[in-house]
């Protein structure tokens, strides 16, 4: 029972508990907060495994970027404070059976997995080998330049498309109905002002 096992147990408990919180909480705001703790726990698992750059990237991209995006989405699309959409009991049962069966299947498969030999003691490659292999200049023939370029262009295209899709456009009939409502309100106010 050494330190890494204790650390893994703590991190896994935090991650799993907050993942259960994400799945079980009815309010989407609370689910967002639970997801935040899950992502931080997964980043801790990366640090424990020795992948420091990946843990930092997880913290920056997920916790700093995706979570902020998601919380803004919740805030913009929320219908009243702590709006809850009810789920049918049948859906709870189907989801529970599906998730439980999947977990049991994968866990038994993982326990039957025979780890090949001894755990390697040498650390994972750091930032420099990763960056060099992404840019294709790592000697040894491992070059990930093409996936790197594909992912960069994909990210650019997706962000342009997201900005195009989410632009603040107002449809013509909505504007017209809003104006009508506004004038109606003014009319009623004038009437109310006149009648007393």
């Amino acid at each position, binding site marked *: 029972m050494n330190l890494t096992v204790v650390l893994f147990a703590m991190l896994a408990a935090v991650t799993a508990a907050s993942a259960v919180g994400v799945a079980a909480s009815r309010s*989407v705001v609370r689910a967002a907060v639970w997801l935040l703790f899950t992502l931080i726990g997964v980043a801790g698992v990366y640090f424990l495994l020795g992948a420091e750059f990946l843990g930092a990237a997880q913290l920056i991209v*997920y916790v700093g970027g995706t979570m902020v995006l998601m919380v803004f989405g919740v805030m913009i699309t929320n219908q009243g404070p702590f709006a809850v959409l009810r789920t049918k009991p049948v859906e709870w049962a189907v989801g529970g059976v599906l998730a439980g069966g999947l977990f049991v299947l994968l866990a038994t498969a993982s326990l039957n997995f025979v780890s090949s030999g001894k755990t390697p003691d040498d650390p994972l490659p750091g930032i420099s080998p990763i960056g060099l292999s992404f840019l294709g200049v790592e000697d040894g023939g491992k070059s990930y330049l093409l996936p790197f370029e594909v992912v960069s262009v994909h990210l650019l295209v997706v962000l342009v498309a997201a900005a195009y899709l989410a632009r603040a456009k107002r449809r013509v009939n909505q504007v017209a109905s809003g104006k009508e409502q506004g004038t109606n309100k003014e009319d009623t106010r004038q009437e109310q002002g006149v009648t007393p």
Partner: protein
Amino acid sequence: MSELSLPPFLILSAFLLACGVFCLATKRNAIGLLMGVELILNAANVNLVAAARFVPSLKLEGQVFALLVVVLAAAEAAVALAIFLNFYNNHATIDVDEATDLRG
């Protein structure tokens, strides 16, 4: 168990995957579905990094593909949120059961 090995990480990853699938099956809020997808992608990433740590021939590949998955997850979240905002602008709800047509 005196030393960490691969199976505990695989079980943690399987648990995250099960929670994500449960999220996808039960949530009716579209952003809740997006959270389930994030959980599933994180489960895959835990698998990849654990393989990078414990399989000697995957030291670089595990981290490289985990980074690619992080970038693709960020892109997916951005475009999915844009679609949900557009849907909310047109239909004034975010219940996925109401999303039977996306033309607006």
